[in-house]
């Protein structure tokens, strides 16, 4: 009997997290569109998968991803080499972004937009080159973002001035950028940060802030992801202007 209780405890958080989405889909399907579910059995099996998946993921965060990010941050702080810390940050940002499936999808769509707008020649090779260039641009942007964010944690520069300045730059750049790149640029800020990168980067920031004297983990540890959502916009706008 005891394992039923612990299984329930393991899953209860995920049940709560998933209830809204189940309610919304059921409500719209049955009340607004007035249609039965096409494959109810498959949907129910899928929900069980989602439930267990979320429960395992959250448990794994606490056991693995958070401690890993934090202990690596502590180890870098102990080592005291700024060069290695910054190259690690850049590699983490660039490496996790360049292979991100959402980014690959969005850059392929973007290359079609660019070809349609006449910014590039409408051939498969030109589109492929454009999409690849865009992916590299966004990955560079995220790498640079983590470097800037880590430098901020080390120096304690005020985040709001940096972010506000960044957005001001983005707004100014928007008025010079070609029309068709704007939507893609703004979206690329949001898609870059994946489910595994976010906890790892958050743990890195928090670990650094807590191992440096005079830094508050909440005040200085968060904010890395904010830079990683901002720089891709500026970099992609620039890419659109240059090409």
């Amino acid at each position, binding site marked *: 009997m005891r394992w039923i209780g612990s299984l329930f405890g393991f899953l209860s958080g995920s049940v709560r997290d998933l209830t*809204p989405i189940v309610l919304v*889909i059921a409500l719209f399907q049955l009340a607004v569109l007035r249609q039965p579910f096409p494959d109810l059995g498959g*949907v129910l099996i899928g929900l069980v998968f989602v439930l267990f998946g979320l429960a395992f993921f959250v448990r*794994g965060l606490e*056991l693995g991803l958070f401690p890993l990010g934090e202990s690596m941050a502590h180890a870098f702080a102990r080592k005291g080499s700024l060069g290695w810390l910054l190259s690690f940050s850049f*590699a983490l940002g660039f490496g996790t972004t360049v292979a991100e499936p959402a980014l690959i999808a969005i850059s392929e769509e973007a290359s079609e937009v660019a070809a349609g707008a006449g910014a590039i020649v409408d051939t498969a090779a030109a589109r492929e080159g454009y999409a690849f260039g865009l992916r590299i641009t966004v990955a560079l942007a995220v790498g640079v973002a983590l470097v800037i964010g880590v430098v901020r944690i080390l120096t304690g520069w005020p985040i709001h001035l940096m972010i506000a300045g960044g957005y001001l730059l983005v707004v100014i750049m928007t008025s010079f950028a070609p029309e068709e790149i704007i*939507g893609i640029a703004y979206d690329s800020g949001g*898609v870059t*940060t994946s489910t595994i990168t976010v906890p790892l980067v958050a743990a890195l920031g928090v670990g650094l802030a807590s191992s440096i004297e005079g830094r508050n983990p909440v005040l200085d540890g968060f904010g890395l992801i904010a830079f990683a959502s901002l720089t891709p916009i500026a970099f992609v706008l620039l890419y659109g202007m240059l090409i």
Partner: protein
Amino acid sequence: MRLLADFIRTLAETVSDVLPIVAILAAFQLFVLRRALPNPTRLLQGLAFVMAGLVLFLMGLEEAVFPVGKAMASQLTAPEVLRAADGPGSGTIDPLAYFWVYAFAFAIGFSTTIAEPALIAVSLKAEELSAGAINAWGLRIAVAIGVAIGISLGAFRIVVGAPLHHFIGVGYALVVAQTLFAPRLIVPLAYDSGGVTTSTVTVPLVAALGLGLAESIPGRSPLIDGFGLIAFASLFPMITVMTYAQASQWRASRSRARASDPEDRLASEEDRP
């Protein structure tokens, strides 16, 4: 049999997604830090849980949530449904007639954000570090409301065809203004919440909604107008999270003022006629 094939495909995709991260971590760990991490078995167990969890989660989403959600997005934005919403015979688009589209955008934005694993991670961390001063559940609800507002407003923008940068410009101005007044502790977290919200669950459903709308409405190009919903979904959580922090700070300071000055309160009650 199909489930097994799905499982293998999703596992392969997740592994190839995670591989670069593992390679970078391992390279720096082995060649630069060269110091053993504490509790390696526990770490490995945790990473295996994360991988297994993500694979199950993605498979389940593909099976249960995405087909239904995408079908609903395309049904709600089908030209016949939208035309009927305009009323018979009217050639123009009345943006307010699309009530169900906005309602769906709001509901799907809210509910997918609550289920977003990356947001769960960040809010757990924030609650732990702030010793409970930041409530994980409150933060997640604030972010979810922000995404909901963002996506329904983004759908409205696609319907009326207004330029994206006007909305974004006003939104950023609001964020900057709020930053000046919000409690300092919440500001970095609020900025982060913008990027955190849009990942595994939200993006595919929202993209389906945006593309469906842009395809159905005459004069909109799916390639140009279909983009931009994610940008809205990343912008508005910053605003709602700071609003939430301001509201809870205001409430806390009010109840503190009451609790700490009982005489004051009594005096003011006695003053009353």
